[in-house]
């Protein structure tokens, strides 16, 4: 069947929806030839560019694209070798598979999951490959699958505290946060916070709708609701309000037999201070517990009081002293 030429005018009228059924058939037949199909998209681009429409922010799109690529990059670097597999002699492929399996078994968790972590007093935000944003509070850890995140599933597990802003996917894929106490939060796209520390798990919803599941129990949360699981019992508090916030950003320091020299390190990193000790024995003192401190001074004071030592804090220099300061 020799195709007749399809004019640009005919294609344009088809794009606008004014072509007849017969004309559409002609276009279909014509476009079966690859070079004609190329021409089809060429004119489609030209037509689409001339159409009025909302302005699209290319720069913003580019930023989104870059951050997405950055996250998926981690995965693709480990995938090298797969595209070329059809050309390898079989035994090389077999060796590679064996090697991969043994590596896979050895580093199973590292390969299957990527961890986002924050240290004491550190707060960080990430954009995940599906465009969702997550902000982790101090001493928290978020584990997410490296493979197929956003494609086959969006499941993460959280230890600590985090706020999520989940993008809605075109395929309505759910985002699931596994927290402590067997609590699962399922969302389609919304904003919420999760607090998941030993002894207490809390979920606060600020926007949208989430389903929360814990073992057999399943409930739907509305904006402003909070659900707390403490000592094994679950309570659903409605309309706590937007002001209620369980997460106090940047203020928490969890220490577990942390030596004073490590505390010094944290102070140096987080607040840019220089830390000295009046005597070296001080360095090995250890401190445990959870501290609320909105600045360096508060943290230094709390730690010193607990250890029964003194300190001097001038300019950006801290010295821990063996004797408590006279008051």
């Amino acid at each position, binding site marked *: 069947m020799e195709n007749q030429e399809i004019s640009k005018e005919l294609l344009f009228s*088809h*794009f606008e*929806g004014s*072509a007849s059924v017969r004309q*559409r058939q002609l*276009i*279909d037949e014509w*476009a*079966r030839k*690859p*070079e004609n*199909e*190329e*021409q*089809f*998209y*060429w004119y*489609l*681009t030209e037509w*689409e*560019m001339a*159409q009025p*429409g*909302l*302005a*699209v922010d*290319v720069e913003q*799109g*580019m930023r*989104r*694209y870059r951050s*997405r*690529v950055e996250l*998926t*990059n981690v*995965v*693709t670097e480990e995938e090298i070798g797969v*595209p070329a597999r*059809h*050309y390898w002699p079989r035994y090389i492929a077999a060796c590679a598979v064996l090697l991969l399996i043994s590596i896979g078994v050895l580093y199973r968790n590292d390969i299957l999951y990527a961890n986002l972590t924050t240290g004491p007093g550190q707060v960080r935000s990430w954009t995940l*490959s599906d*465009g969702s944003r997550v902000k982790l509070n101090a001493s928290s850890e978020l584990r997410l699958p490296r493979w197929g995140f956003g494609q086959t599933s969006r499941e993460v597990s959280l230890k600590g505290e985090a706020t999520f802003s989940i*993008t*809605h*996917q*075109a*395929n*309505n894929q*759910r985002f699931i946060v596994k927290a402590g106490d067997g609590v699962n939060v399922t969302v389609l796209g919304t904003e919420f916070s999760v607090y998941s520390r030993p002894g207490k798990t809390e979920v606060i919803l600020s926007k949208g709708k989430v389903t929360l599941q814990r073992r057999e129990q399943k409930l739907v949360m509305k904006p402003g609701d909070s659900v707390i699981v403490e000592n094994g019992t679950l309570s659903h508090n409605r309309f706590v309000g937007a002001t209620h916030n369980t997460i106090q950003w940047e203020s928490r320091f969890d220490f577990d037999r942390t030596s004073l020299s490590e505390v010094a390190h944290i102070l140096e990193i987080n607040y840019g201070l220089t830390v000295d000790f009046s005597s070296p024995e001080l360095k090995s003192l250890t401190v445990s517990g959870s501290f609320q401190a909105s600045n360096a001074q508060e943290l230094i004071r709390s730690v010193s009081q607990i250890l029964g030592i003194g300190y001097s804090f001038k300019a950006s220099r801290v010295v821990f002293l063996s004797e408590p300061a006279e008051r």
Partner: protein
Amino acid sequence: MGVDPHVHNFDGSNEAKAATGPRQLPLHGGDGFSDSEFFIRAAVMENPKLGTELLFKRYYSVLCKHAMRFVGSREIAEDLVCDIFCQFYSEGIFERITTSYRAYLFRAVRNYGYDHLKKEASKLPIGEMVELSASEGLQPDHITQYEELYQDLDKAISGLPIQRRNIYMQFHLEGKSQKEIALALGISTRTVQVQMYRAQQTIRTLLRNKWFVSIVIAIFTH
């Protein structure tokens, strides 16, 4: 010239798997349609990262515009196009494309757009979560069906009562919140919700009747 047998039932992910072996890049001169991509193609081959960004700058807005015809929402359209570029680069799709990049990108957008509408049309009322069990990956046989589809969607929207259409457009196209719309029109948020719901039902029903009749709907059991 490498003629891709999947030209008409193209699916972004399937193509990636189906394309085995290296193919000669059709750097055909003279036909005028791939020519204009010659430099971008060279750039992508030379430095995939930078090349893809060049490609992104060139086609991002026009692809978003086209995607919007299918998905109705700007946010989802931009998201979708970003995804396509991300796959294009990260999964090395650019190495296997035998058509022009333009043709690939447009086909991908149209297929995703089609899938999106299919899912949209299969939603049950009252926001129940549903999933398609069958006919996943089935695509239209004819290239013009994509145009027909978005034109039908457009007609469905135009056929809505004026206020309902207005609300629908403001919400989906301009990305306004229900509250903002209610405030601007001097009606309650509840009314906005009801209108949105009715608009969606009308559109879904129309799409379902014409396009996605054979779809089997399975309710999530989770």
